[in-house]
């Protein structure tokens, strides 16, 4: 009887999910409530988790709780420690959740809410969660090895080196693009700039407190740090209204870019305990709190989505970034659907603390579903804005016109009415000078979140606080990604340079540390400045490049996973990872090809360079402008080369993998298991 009730309950969940999804997907011409999307996503996640993921866990991975995990076998009280399932779940979720699932869906909302929402739900259930889940499993069965180590052992030495190079290049593009998001959110905003600047002395205070005054009291100082950050938001308002102080914090995009570059260099060279670690603690807690707050806010307010299901920009002529739904929607949204970066986390800290093999199911698959739900909330937050406002905030001046009146007229002519006075009033209500041309997604997301939070209580009186709280929240963990990313990039570079000269590889040799930090900062700093100077807003060129890179890293992870599945079961279950792999390859190769060779200057880097060359050849430019155009030509050519390098790197790994798979399946290559041998678990339930 119990079994029948259970089956009926799951059937009800499936039917409800299908009904809600049909409501979301088939509705046209009418605004719908965001609850439809929440219900559709939740039901599909539950069904995917219960049936698809459990099938993979039981039949494919053959998870076995009697088998000791690395956490138990290699227990050392430091990295390897069996930990409670739900604590590992929260830890893993906090590690995979970054700015990506918030910014990507906001940008992709230019197609309407439907394409992004469908990709987030389907991509996560069949792709992203599967990737995280399988890689975590593979790492656990191999003593917690990293993706690079597994690529080297499973595919070959070439695979390992290619994976390392790919990650390094991706890091550079990633850091540039997230820095650009912060710069675009803070330019001309004394309130936001002051708040973010204040987080630095607050973090240093936290570091000193932890090291000298109250050693080990991390939770205590994190709470104090949070109170100080909230106080700095209130102080930011006073600074913005002060005729004396406001000019010091009203910075142009370029000035902010150089400030972030200088900051990145010092943050990566300073002792970790002084700035990076305390702010990382703070940003992790704020991140978890805001995600929870947003979920509660959406459930409480149940906002209506103002954006249509599909906009006219499905034709590829969007103002935020150019290109059609296929392939650009699928590379714009990475982290909420499938992200290569997650494979680095799934083969990093997490496999070392999983106590029992079956915990991989909620930790690997479940955490990604929660991240996907964060992306759904970001789409909802972007969609609660009026479409005219959404496009006014996110469109660059190069597309919509350089004055508020021209921009409002252009956006209204697309069928999304908005006026300059309406935008001025909105800007005033959130304590900003203007909200036009704030490309990058962060300000429109902050507006949507502020709208939801303010509707939960307080109304317009608290709108400006919540807007700046949301900006602070986004910038806080983006800057943490920049600090940590620059440091890791420096380690990777030193690892590579160490092969040329032994001393360059030593992390304790300060000239080597400064030189490699400077090289990494110059790498992403160059792309950041390029993005800031880009008349199309920078996001148009940099975000797709980042999306392609991130998805190609996912392709590498899926190649490793497929190799392991073939070694375990032959061809029987290889479809589980090959399905998302084939999709990702078709998406990324098409996107990369279009970004390099499309004849449209708004899409193709080479076509853009050619168009600029024609402008230059016409000879009707001022002297200063000609130099700027030459730089833009070089930048477009450089972007095309970077895109080409990504393709070459991934093609190398793909060909290497396919040759191995064919050999394994035909029996011409020996299938050697790299799993660690079975050891009986002696872990008692009370220990976890």
């Amino acid at each position, binding site marked *: 009887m119990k079994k029948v009730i259970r089956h009926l309950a799951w059937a009800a969940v499936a039917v409800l999910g299908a009904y809600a999804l049909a409501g979301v997907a088939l509705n046209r011409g009418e605004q719908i409530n965001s609850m439809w999307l929440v219900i559709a996503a939740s039901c599909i996640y539950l069904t995917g988790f219960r049936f698809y993921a459990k099938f993979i866990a039981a039949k494919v991975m053959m998870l076995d709780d009697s088998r000791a995990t690395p956490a138990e076998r290699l227990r050392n009280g*430091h990295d390897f420690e069996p930990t409670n399932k739900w604590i590992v779940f929260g830890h893993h979720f906090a590690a995979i959740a970054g700015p990506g699932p918030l910014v990507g869906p906001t940008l992709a909302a230019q197609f309407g809410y439907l394409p992004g929402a469908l990709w987030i739900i389907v991509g996560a259930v069949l792709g992203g969660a599967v990737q995280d889940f399988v890689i975590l499993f593979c790492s656990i069965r191999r003593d917690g090895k990293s993706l690079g180590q597994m690529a080297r052992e499973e595919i070959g030495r070439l695979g390992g080196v290619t994976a390392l190079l790919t990650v390094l290049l991706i890091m550079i593009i990633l850091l540039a693009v997230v820095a650009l998001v912060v710069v675009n959110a803070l330019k001309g905003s004394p309130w936001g700039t002051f708040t973010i600047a204040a987080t630095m002395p607050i973090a240093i205070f936290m570091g000193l407190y932890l090291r000298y005054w109250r050693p080990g009291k991390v939770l205590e100082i994190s709470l104090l740090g949070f109170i100080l950050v909230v106080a700095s938001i209130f102080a930011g308002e006073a600074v913005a209204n002060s005729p004396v102080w406001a000019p010091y914090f009203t910075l142009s995009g370029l000035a902010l870019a150089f400030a972030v570059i200088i900051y990145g260099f010092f943050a990566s060279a300073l002792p970790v305990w002084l700035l990076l670690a305390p702010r990382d603690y703070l940003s992790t807690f704020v991140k978890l709190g805001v995600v929870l707050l947003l979920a509660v806010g959406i459930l409480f307010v149940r906002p209506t989505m103002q954006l249509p299901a599909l906009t006219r920009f499905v034709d590829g002529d969007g103002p935020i970034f150019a290109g059609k739904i296929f392939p650009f929607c699928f590379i714009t949204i990475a982290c909420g659907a499938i992200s290569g970066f997650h494979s680095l986390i799934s083969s990093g800290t997490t496999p070392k603390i999983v106590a029992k093999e079956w915990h991989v199911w909620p930790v690997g698959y479940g955490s990604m579903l929660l991240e996907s739900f964060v992306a759904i909330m970001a789409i909802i937050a972007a969609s609660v804005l009026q479409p005219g406002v959404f496009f006014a905030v996110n469109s660059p001046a190069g597309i919509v016109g350089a004055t508020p009146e021209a921009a409002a007229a252009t956006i209204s002519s697309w069928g999304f009415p908005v006026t300059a006075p309406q935008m001025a009033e909105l800007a005033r209500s959130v304590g900003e000078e203007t909200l036009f041309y704030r490309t990058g997604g962060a300000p429109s997301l902050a507006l949507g979140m502020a709208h939801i939070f303010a509707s939960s209580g307080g109304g317009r009186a608290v709108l400006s606080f919540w807007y700046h709280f949301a900006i602070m929240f986004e910038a806080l963990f983006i800057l*943490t990604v920049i600090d940590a990313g620059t440091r890791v990039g420096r380690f990777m570079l030193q690892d590579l340079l160490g092969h040329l000269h032994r001393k360059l590889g030593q992390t304790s040799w300060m000239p080597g540390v400064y030189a490699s930090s400077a090289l990494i900062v110059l790498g992403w700093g160059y792309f950041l400045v390029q993005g800031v100077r880009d008349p199309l807003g920078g996001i148009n060129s940099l975000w797709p490049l980042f999306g392609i890179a991130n998805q190609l890293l996912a392709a590498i992870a899926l190649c490793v996973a497929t190799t392991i599945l073939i070694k375990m079961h032959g061809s029987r279950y290889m479809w589980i990872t090959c399905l998302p792999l084939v999709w990702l390859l078709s998406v990324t190769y098409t996107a990369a090809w279009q970004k390099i060779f499309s004849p449209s200057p708004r899409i193709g880097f080479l076509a853009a360079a050619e168009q600029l060359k024609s402008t230059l050849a016409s000879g009707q430019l001022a002297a200063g402008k000609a130099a700027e155009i030459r730089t833009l030509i070089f930048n477009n050519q450089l972007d095309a080369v970077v895109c080409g390098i990504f393709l070459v790197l991934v093609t190398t790994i793909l060909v290497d993998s396919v040759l191995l798979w064919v050999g394994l399946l035909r029996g011409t290559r020996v299938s050697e298991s790299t799993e660690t041998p079975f050891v009986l678990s002696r872990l008692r339930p009370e220990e976890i």
Partner: protein
Amino acid sequence: MAKLWQILVGLFKQLSDESAYERHLASHGLQHSPQEWRRFWDCRLRAKYARVKCC
């Protein structure tokens, strides 16, 4: 409710490295001291920030 609170506190202590420090003291039979915390913290952070952070 008590179980949920226990998990939440456990998660916060895990994220803040406080539980790792407690394990470190227990496994080495040490008492907390400012010097021991600094030694542990330096070692912990060196390993922690040699790994990428997710985007």
